[in-house]
């Protein structure tokens, strides 16, 4: 290496390859790729210590692909697609590099356009502050103050503060629900979940009650089933292996 080149100066393995091929004054093809493999490896090796591993990873993957390619080019007799079919055709890598090169060149052209465009300063235009508020800032209705007052008079009663309500905290715990459910099941052999919690139960009651059912089922204290999908959940007491509920 005549001068130091750092991996960070390249945007990726393809960028480095383009650079090497250009340096060697070659065209992009499998043979020229094979010719620059050693230089490529030298760069990656030299940079392996300094570059961050994340970036180096992509370069290493390419190194592996290049070695396969070189082997293919040097030993064309060991022709393609032996068994696995895993290995790529050298032409695939070449095509990929050509495609990349097209966009790399296009990027340079775009950069050139941007550079040129920076010399054009657009007419700044007038801000809303210069001309007063623009129409977009104004509602497009004519508001008559009297009509506004009348409208408010109609609406005002709706905005009276609501009468105070007392909120009674009622949050049964799962523990309490388990006790309560077991008490009920001592009275009846089986019951519907809906019947247990009541038709109008709130989520604060439903959730602990349902968790209680799951817990009791887990402890094998109850049997739980539904007659049909999305049907009522039926909870039955279970007494030491003897099933009260059939089926």
């Amino acid at each position, binding site marked *: 290496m005549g001068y130091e080149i750092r991996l960070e100066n390249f945007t990726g393995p393809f960028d480095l390859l383009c650079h090497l091929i250009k340096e060697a004054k070659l065209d992009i093809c499998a043979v020229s790729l094979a010719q620059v493999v050693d230089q490529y490896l030298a760069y990656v090796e030299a940079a392996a210590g300094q570059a961050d591993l994340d970036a180096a990873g*992509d370069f290493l993957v390419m190194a592996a692909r290049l070695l396969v390619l070189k082997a293919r080019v040097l030993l064309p007799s060991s022709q393609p697609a032996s068994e696995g079919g895993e290995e790529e055709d050298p032409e695939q890598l070449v095509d990929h590099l050509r495609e990349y090169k097209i*966009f790399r060149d296009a990027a340079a052209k*775009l*950069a050139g356009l941007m550079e040129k465009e920076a010399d*054009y*300063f657009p007419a700044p235009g*007038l801000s809303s502050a210069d001309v007063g508020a623009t129409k977009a800032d104004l509602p497009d209705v004519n508001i008559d103050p009297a009509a506004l007052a009348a409208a408010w008079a109609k609406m005002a009663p709706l905005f009276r503060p609501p009468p105070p309500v007392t909120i009674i905290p009622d949050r049964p715990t799962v523990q309490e629900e388990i006790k309560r459910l077991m008490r009920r099941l001592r009275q009846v052999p089986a019951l519907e979940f809906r019947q247990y919690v009541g038709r109008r139960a709130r989520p604060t009651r439903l959730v602990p009650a349902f968790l209680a059912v799951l817990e009791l089922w887990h402890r094998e204290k109850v049997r739980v089933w539904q007659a049909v999908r999305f049907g009522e959940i039926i909870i039955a007491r279970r007494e030491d292996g003897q099933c009260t509920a059939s089926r």
Partner: protein
Amino acid sequence: MHSESVTALLEALLFAAGRPLTIKELANAAGLSLEDTELGLEELRRTLADARRGLVLREVAGGVQLFTRPEFAPYVRRLLQPAERPRLSQAALETLAIIAYRQPITRQEIEAVRGVRVDQVLFTLEERGLITEVGRKDAPGRPVLYGTTPAFLRSLGLASLKDLPPLPEVGATKDAGPA
């Protein structure tokens, strides 16, 4: 209206707008037909160029806009002392080029071309307002599709994506084969 005053009127509107105006917007504001507006714009463009005035009329991002003449850029810079925008990195430029020519495109597709991860670069480009999410690909995982923005066209001085520098044919290189 006299054609000279049409030209002057259009100039006034473009000056006041300070952004690309479509022919339609101009025609509406000026109370002219689309044809008369286009003729007027052509006249304005010629007048500005012939008299070597300080402003030029250009077509950008789907509209027309007035700009200072590029030869005077050094002087405008001396006056305004604009902060230099950090230039886009090579990696960002490559990614932007791929998106510009292949949009709409997913992150994975860009990475396939560049051979490296591009998430950081995409973030930068999106932050600069040059690209944006344009939808989701109808593929597993519904990946985000990226495309360029009007700001991209403006920063390159292009009227539309059709004015991007043409790419050499990708397929044509296939026949070249190994030497």
